[in-house]
């Protein structure tokens, strides 16, 4: 499974756009890129998943360049409630032994 590298922490202010970039240089052809959000004392929550180009849902956007060696999670106009740890993961969705391996994540702090 491909390893991912992302910043340990980021600070932002309410109303700003936050972009968290993740590197996955060894991503395989069948791997998808998935982002999760985790609040203290809770299990991680699925945010968004993509394979290439751009994916957008009601919560975030995911930008994936053509070489797929990195991806950027974009959170528009963050609020205090977006303070959480964000995990970037890659995995082969067609692999019968598919399983997500978590890294250390990015700790996002949103300030008033």
């Amino acid at each position, binding site marked *: 499974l491909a390893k991912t590298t992302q910043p340990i922490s980021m600070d932002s202010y309410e109303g700003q756009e936050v972009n968290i970039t993740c590197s996955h240089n060894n991503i395989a052809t069948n791997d998808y890129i998935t982002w999760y959000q985790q609040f203290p004392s*809770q299990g991680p929550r699925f945010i968004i998943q993509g394979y290439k180009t751009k994916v957008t849902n009601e919560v975030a956007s995911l930008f994936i360049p053509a070489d797929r060696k990195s991806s950027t999670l974009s959170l528009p106009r963050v609020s205090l409630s977006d303070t959480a740890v964000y995990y970037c993961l890659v995995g082969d969705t067609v692999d019968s032994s598919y399983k997500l391996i978590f890294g250390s994540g990015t700790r996002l702090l949103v300030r008033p």
Partner: protein
Amino acid sequence: IAGITQAPTSQILAAGRRMTLRCTQDMRHNAMYWYRQDLGLGLRLIHYSNTAGTTGKGEVPDGYSVSRANTDDFPLTLASAVPSQTSVYFCASSTGTGDGYTFGSGTRLTVV
């Protein structure tokens, strides 16, 4: 409400005792997983099951065992607990094709 139920919510356990953490899902997901999360760190995969009747080892399987007798239940057993197994344990499930995991609320285990 569909989802994952973990029990107990928290437990203090004497070292050397046997303990089973329970996990039940009602989404008919094929795959289930157990992770542990130590303070300030990311999640580490302990064991997984791609479908009922099969199990596999994750990143940190030593000291733990699992069984998957049916689709809904995936108990995690600590045969003889040690203090290093103090952690928060999360159970998760997915359809097995990578389109997002659903996590339980976690079991906070303290081994003394």
